[in-house]
């Protein structure tokens, strides 16, 4: 389990390569890359996404989520990288990789990690468009996705 808060842009494919090279006999590797889009939620053009984090609390929130993924699914390795700061369209915001013996666990854990990160990771996010900016919060869909795992846990 490796969790990083990145202040500068990173290369998801390169990180997937390193992650996979370090594996043992895992048969399945799933990755997710979340990229900044050029379109804001309102539909207009977006010039950048700015993610504010808070000291050690943001990283810690990511570590808790990754730890939960390891408790809930039969994954043997995971990598979570999240950008902070100003992110321009097509740059990676978040990258998650999971590995397991068989594919179901790797898929579910990556899906789960993303659902939790999108709703609970300690970031405050705003979209910059032209001169102004708009704070954004998890969508109803994000919250609904995150709720799916509650039944599972019990």
């Amino acid at each position, binding site marked *: 389990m490796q969790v990083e808060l990145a202040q500068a842009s990173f290369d998801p494919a390169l990180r997937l390569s390193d992650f996979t090279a370090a594996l043992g006999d895992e048969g399945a590797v799933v990755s997710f890359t979340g990229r900044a889009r050029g379109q804001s939620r309102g539909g207009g053009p977006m010039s950048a996404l700015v993610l*504010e984090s*808070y*000291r050690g*609390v943001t990283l810690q929130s990511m570590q808790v989520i990754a730890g939960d993924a390891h408790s809930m699914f039969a994954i043997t390795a995971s990598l979570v990288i999240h950008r902070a700061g100003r992110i321009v369209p097509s740059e990676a*915001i*978040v990258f998650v990789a999971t590995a397991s013996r068989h594919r179901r666990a790797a898929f579910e854990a990556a899906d789960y990690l993303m659902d939790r990160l999108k709703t609970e*990771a*300690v970031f405050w996010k705003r979209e910059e468009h032209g001169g102004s900016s708009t*704070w954004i*919060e998890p969508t109803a869909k994000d919250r609904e996705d995150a709720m799916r795992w509650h039944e599972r846990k019990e």
Partner: protein
Amino acid sequence: MIHAQLDVELCGRLADSCGPSLRLTIPENGLPVTAMLASLARAYPAVSDALGRIRIRACINETIVSEEAVVRPGDTVALFPPVSGG
């Protein structure tokens, strides 16, 4: 009562009205989070609206705490609006 200065960091949209850090005078033996929020609202009317409208969580020394937790001089204190997620 002896008083001390405390800098409170405001995260996310809470910083929109008065910037990312506000100075507050607190009793030297500290005060609960609820009292700190009330004191902040009195001292900075511009943030009182945001503080009242959305659910705020306090963070003391990098730990998110309950409303009953006590803030003491020297603590690293921040106020979190609801997180955006990643």
